[in-house]
């Protein structure tokens, strides 16, 4: 059962601002979904290993050679907030 404080904490972790009014609504809807997830407790999984991925590929490497990449102006084309060829954000901290 997640509380209003949990919702605030998850919102902070996920970087999503949540209004006072939304908190109650999220609490209700998130709890109904998490209740449903609780049914997995019925399944015995002590000796089962997890499947992160279905295909049998490990450590996919490529040759360490430089290839063509996108030109800087194309990469910066989707934002207004740029300066001297860099993305511009508010002071961090």
């Amino acid at each position, binding site marked *: 059962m997640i509380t209003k404080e949990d919702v605030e904490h998850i*919102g*902070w972790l996920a970087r*999503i601002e949540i209004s006072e009014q939304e908190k109650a609504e999220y609490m209700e*809807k998130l709890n109904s979904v998490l209740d449903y*997830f609780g049914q997995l407790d019925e399944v015995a999984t002590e000796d*089962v290993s997890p499947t992160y991925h279905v295909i049998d590929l490990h450590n996919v490497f490529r040759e360490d050679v430089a290839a063509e990449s996108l030109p800087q102006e194309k990469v910066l084309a*989707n934002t207004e907030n740029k300066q001297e060829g860099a993305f511009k954000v508010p002071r961090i901290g």
Partner: protein
Amino acid sequence: MTAKWMSVAEIKQKIGESSAEEVTADYLEAIKKSKINGYVTVSDRALEKSKEIDSEGHKGPLAGVPIAIKDNISVQGLPNSCGSRMLENYVPPFNAHVIEKLIEAGAVILGKTNMDEFAMGSSTESSYFGPVLNPWDLERVPGGSSGGSAAVVAAGEAPFALGSDTGGSIRCPASFCGVVGLKPTYGAVSRYGAVAYANSLEQIGPLANNVEDIAVLMDVIAGHDARDSTSVPEEKTDYQAALKDDIKGLKIGVPKEYFGEGISPGVEKAVWDAIHHCEALGASWEEVSMPHTKYALASYYIIAMSEASSNLARFDGTRYGFREAGETWHSLISKTRAEGFGDEVKRRILIGTYALSAGYHDKYYLKALKVRTLVKQDFEKALSKVDVLMAPTMPNPAFKVGEKIEDPLALYLSDVNTVPINLAGVPSMSVPCGFTDGLPVGLQIIGKPFDEPTLLRTAYTFEQNTDYHSRRPPEVA
């Protein structure tokens, strides 16, 4: 005669007799009259491109053939909104691998199709650009999340389309709209240039009005691509070679768990009729059991939401997309994401964040991954005895717009027959197999990894001996 609803083979013949320009113009005309809100963007370059192809002399297996692309697959120069305010004005500076392949083959991209926001949904109602309407009944949803791609194909606004399928997002709308859809084996089609939602589950795949056109499209888009590290280096498959009208001796497994409570009687009847029809065509069937099916839905949603919470972290208002003003770095990102994402996307990110957070990781995420192993083993066991599995794609026909959108859990439950397939990574098709109360029903055919040829042969044989795929929705005729 207009090219609307023609097969790709018929379109190629028409291009030979008249021009690619005429064919593209026919589709642009059909799109202009659309009642279904299937496209987010119609390309203003399509007609020009078709003229170029005419002047170059129709080179390539799809020379001049129009196609629609789901709005989460990057096409250089066309907006790639993912159905979200967050990416409303984002224009990719590069092409997805599948788009490079389509352009090489000579295809003409008509536009980008509407979808559930970031592919999260089964009804296409969560799109920032409004819901897509089902061509068979304009009061109903087309399914989702590739609802735009399925609906434009059903409505004759594109001969075929690309979608993506994370937990049923190609097969669900194919079923609701009465078209054919294929979710390929995980790793068969490169995801380079597709916007990630849950990357261990999703695949790009085709939707079309007939099985042959699905194979035509697979021959173009499938194959290894080094830019997707999960792309499997298999031998090149000839998908069109699989199109044979012959399923004599085919062994069909019918998983009883896929006919559970809540299935509509009309769907159940149509699917069993289809299985018996295959029997009459020389196949045999037996019941099989996949005991972990009931846990697949919870496992799927935990994994999908966890992966989403990580994948969607990139939308922070910095490099592209929507940006809300903020005094600090944290407040800028938090406000940007609060305003830029819709309700369902935020719910999934929040639940995924919770499932991965300290103290809950083992209870939710790790548990879901272990259940995933059991679900996958169910498939391995069942498919060691039979060639294909057959089941309903969706337990119900298309529901009404607004009917389920307020209750997330009710909407998730409708994916009960599609999500296990993505957990296991096996290929699966939805094929029209009948109608209930005037609405299409989809037969789901599930196969072994990389055995798309057997799926295509089965679907093709069923289609050649039935006429469901050739019926057209009256409201958009």
